[in-house]
């Protein structure tokens, strides 16, 4: 019986940036930062419009109001959204290994998930409206878990990269099924 078990990090040909020996986390495409920033600016714009629309009602209810309050609040909120987008981008990492895939994400709370390929039930590639501008896609990997929230969604991958990961997983499943039949 084979007692020696290896779970090497796989290098994706498209990027060829993962070391074979060490488990080094990969960042998603740098274009994804643009998507996150754009998304945050849209949120900012929506809130700004809502605030301007209800500004008079809000001011009436405030005991004290100065214009600089408003500008300070907006600046802080805008900075928060920018920082959040940058941190979220930096924290969004993944590793494709020989037998499983790991994904890390989060802003304040960091969540790391791992799905072994032997438990993968479905692999989906989804292209969002904003992501399509930079040819990005996200890969959704689901197991048979009861809780739907554990579906692994790696967003911000280049489309080719997502396709490569999908192929690796499908190939693994095929080989495994080939062995068991």
């Amino acid at each position, binding site marked *: 019986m084979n007692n020696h078990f290896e779970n090497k990090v796989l290098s994706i040909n498209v990027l060829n940036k993962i070391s074979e020996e060490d488990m080094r986390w990969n960042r998603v495409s740098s274009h994804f930062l643009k998507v996150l920033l754009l998304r945050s600016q849209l949120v900012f714009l929506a809130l700004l419009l809502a605030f301007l629309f209800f500004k008079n009602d809000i001011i009436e209810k405030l005991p004290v109001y100065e214009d600089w309050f408003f500008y300070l609040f907006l600046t802080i909120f805008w900075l928060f959204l920018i920082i959040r987008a940058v941190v979220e981008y930096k924290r969004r990492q993944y590793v494709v290994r020989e037998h499983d895939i790991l994904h890390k994400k989060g802003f304040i709370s960091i969540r790391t998930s791992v799905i072994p390929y032997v438990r993968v*039930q479905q692999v989906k590639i989804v292209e969002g409206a904003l992501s399509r501008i930079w040819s990005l896609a996200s890969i959704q990997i689901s197991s048979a878990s009861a809780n739907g929230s554990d579906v692994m969604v790696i967003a911000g991958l280049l489309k080719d990269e997502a396709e490569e990961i999908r192929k690796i997983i499908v190939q693994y499943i095929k080989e495994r*099924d080939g062995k068991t039949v």
Partner: protein
Amino acid sequence: MEKLFNEQQRQSLLSVLIFAVNHFRTLMRQGLALLFLVFFMLRRFIENPFYLISSIIILLVLTAILFLIYAYYQYKNFVFYIDYENEEFHLSSGVFQKKEISFYIHQIQQVYIERKWMQRLLGLSAIKIEVAGASSETISLNSLSHGVAAVLLKEFQIIQKQKQKIIPPPFRDNAQPIIEPLAFIQNKKREIYAEPEQKSLPPKIPFKTLEVPLKNILKNAVVTRILQGLLLLFVPLQFIGYDFLMRIFDFLEEHYSFQIVWGPLVILAFLLSGVLLSVLLNTIRSLLMHFNLKLEEVEKGQYQLSQGLINLKVVQIKPQRIQMVQLEQNYLQRKMQIYTLIVRQLKDLEEGQANVGIRIPGITQKQLEDLVNGGFIPDFRAKGKTLQPLKRKFWIHTLFFTLINCVFLGITWVFYPVLWMPLLIVLLPIWPLGIFWMYKKVKTEQFRYTLNQVWHQKGIWKRVNTYFYTSKVQSFDKQHYFWQKRFLHAHIFTAASVMRLTYYPQNEWKVIQRELLEQLEQYSPKWF
């Protein structure tokens, strides 16, 4: 084999109609408020009824045209094909958000044809494909012409038959997976997990019938769910009405002697009658639900659980589909030496059931041992390596508990100063008691594991022991705030439920996760 679907195909052109009708239905269902809003806005601006009706009609026609255009693009982008060489099914769809789904055809758990009234009317059929598991969604090709749907179904079956697989594979009657995980573990020889109990496993003696006597069901009913019953008592209070309650408070305020002498007695009597009422209700409920509870083997590897007084409820249980087992025992149950057993099995794709926990109350230690020896549930007595949450869990909980108490006192101080002192008198003994409770809770919580099984035990009043075979694990997940370097919250997902571990040491957990992952990945044990 003739490759009928090897090129990209679209659904029937009539699918445009189906898509458009579906959008219209969604609008009616979810956007009714929006429609009303539009109607009232129009009425505000257009006073003449003729123009009002005309504009509504124009709006409806415009919406229909928009839906039709959108539906046309949906039809155009909805493309599927079978990759015969790799035995994969590919589907891409979406207009603004493009979606690509592909799966290995042997992964299909269930595939069937569905024809609703509208599809029948248009001569169409829908093919529904369930890939597996509870969280995986059903893939639908809703508007295939009936002939194409039948041929596609046949193609799936042919490809699957070529690999000698039958749909749906999780429920093969002759499967013996309970033996399998044990065999899978017995092959491992590692010093760290060497366990005398596991090496000398007794031969399995399948039990034929297990009956829970009425006496035990009644005993169980009397000692469980007391708190829930008490909480139920507060429900009618909201129907009594605010005025009535205020009158009672006014009466108590006016008659101070009554408050001092009879007040505590009234509260005590209220609580006591509440306990009695909840016991009575729970007994009736238990009798109705669990009367004549019997678990019997109907055929090899398949059991049937029947129970109920008026409505007889029958559930089929296959041990291989059990994903997670939970043993509950509160303090009073411990004194009576009875347990509540909850088995969580994989959802039944055939019957469309949700992942249900099947509750077997009033079960004795001897009966549990029979179930274990018969291979119905994993062994709850086996020992393994133990890991406990960090003491920090206690400190964090204590901090929160103290903060909540302070907030209560603060609110009372500001808004109801009269009640501040009585509240302080009540909270003073509750605070240390609560802290002691939390200390014991953290102290008694533990996670045990071997290569074969994992257990999680927690609770002081009610001890809950959750456990399952490691072969049932689907995925892992861990979570922590970026400043937390020593502990994490870990989740182990199975196809029926999740095991949640909070405030466990990070470094130790990494080792455990690696060990368990290695087992899954090296030996690919079956989970159904």
